[in-house]
């Protein structure tokens, strides 16, 4: 079976590069074909990379608390590009301060993310779910 392709990146004006590298390594080791866009990734770049690579999922990281404004409209942009049904995850320090997680999760699900992960999620915490969601 062909490896599933994931587009990975840190969205917006966020320059946190370490977690992004760790994810790339862990996901590659887990057998995925990882297209890592790195840091400072715009919505347009996520959409275009997913189009060219025929990606199976988009994994968005955000570690500086501005994820809501950065990620708003990404699902709509994917719909415009004809790949609106692509699986999409987000994780990291998505909001500023200690907000109730269930509210944060609901907010990002409403923005079109299929799964939302809190800070300090380890790769092994979500990779099994990812496999399942991709029907592997």
């Amino acid at each position, binding site marked *: 079976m*062909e490896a599933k*392709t994931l587009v990975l990146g840190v969205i917006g*004006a*966020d320059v946190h590069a370490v977690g992004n590298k760790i994810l790339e390594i862990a996901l590659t080791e887990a057998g995925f074909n990882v297209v890592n866009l790195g840091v400072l990734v715009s919505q347009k770049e996520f959409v*275009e*990379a997913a*189009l*060219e*690579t025929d990606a199976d999922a988009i994994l968005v990281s955000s570690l500086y608390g*501005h994820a809501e404004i950065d990620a708003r409209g990404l699902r709509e942009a994917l719909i415009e590009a004809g790949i609106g049904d692509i699986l999409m995850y987000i994780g990291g320090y998505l909001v500023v301060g200690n907000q109730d997680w269930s509210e944060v999760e609901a907010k990002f699900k409403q923005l079109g993310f299929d799964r939302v992960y809190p800070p300090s999620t380890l790769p092994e915490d979500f990779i099994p779910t990812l496999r399942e969601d991709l029907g592997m």
Partner: protein
Amino acid sequence: MSGSWVLVDIGSTFTKVTAVDIGQRRILAQSSAPTTIEDVSIGLRNALQGLGLDAEQLRQARKLACSSAAGGLRMVAIGLVQDLTAKAARLAALGAGARVLSTYSFQLTEADREEIIELQPDIILLAGGTDGGNRENILHNAKVLASLPNPVPVVIAGNRSVAQEVAACFPPEFSTYIAPNVMPQIGQLQVDPAREVIRRVFMEKIIYAKGLDKAGRWIEGIFMPTPAAVLRAGQLLSQGTAARKGWGDLLIVDVGGATTDVHSLGKGLPTRAGVVVRGLPEPYAKRTVEGDLGVRVSVLSLMETVGPDVLAQEVNWTREEVESRAELLHAHPDTLPESDEEWHFDRVLARLAVAHAVSRHVGRLSELYTPAGLVWVQEGKDLSSVATVIGTGGVLVRSHDPLAVLEGAGKQGDAPLELRPEDPLFFLDGSYILASMGLLAQEEPDAAFDILTDSLSNYKLARREQ
């Protein structure tokens, strides 16, 4: 390691020939004659006779040619996403020395198909999808192209997983060539193999289609389009050979009546710390062509880009005077300047064409304020440390003050974030041998390097004053 070589450039108006002695490392003679497009061998023979070599010497000399006659190499580039594979395809075609008539992204529409029929490209470069990536788009586009009424050679340089399937979409009248993907992965550009395939198709097919093969009884072959030869000369000069140290990163500018070409040789990596690079990586040997920046045929679009008032201020004329002169040059591209003022006007036009063409070619920095502080973002090539800028082409070579024109390539006060050469040395291709030495570089790189550096050193212009 001796003997004479004759290097030929069959241009759209003139056929230029240069004879060199590679043992003595010198130019023996140069000559030119009007290109005779109905049978290029006539113009070529006239130019060769002008060299004044004796018949035996001429017969024994090896003869290589490049050509930009009969419209040059006209191409259409097609990809999937505009800023990804479509841009990569365009860069590959430009680097192969083509005139890119149009670039298409996403699925070709009926209107696009009609337009391609009108444009009559010599070669179509079809890309789309990274390796293992999107396959539907390139297959769709192949089917559209396969229905073109007149067969066109198609170079396929997209998703390798479907390359064979794409080729199979075309009926047998179409020649198809499979090259490695111009963008095998996101963020990875691979244009050299496709360039080489395009060059081969040009050499094996296009020169016959254009009737340039009639020159064949005088020369060994037409090996590449002229701009590809110029780029190759730049590469030779920049990188040197096994035995010669190259000049390092450099920029070549060619101002013409219709277009302004810029070639850069260099990786263009950031020259200062803490810069984040974004966007598609650009090729080491990059060529851009600005079809709206020229000093004759394209003078009106140049004036529009610059702004007629700015132009008027630069030359100290009224806006009406500027506009009427531009109209005249556009309507009569053969017009030569006579008065000092007209020469000055031409010089200002050329400098502005250089300034804008280089602006579009180089990368730029932008400031981005993040919660972690200020971050500098670089898009495109950082050419600020380029030490050599070379001017070529008739407009620059004929100019009374080529340095004033070429300084348009350097740092501009009003564009501090453009990554232009900051303090280069300026040279002029005064004996017009860049393309010739690009040809010779294929066979005798050391001799080509020596003759080229010797000639350029004779045309070193003063260093820019800061």
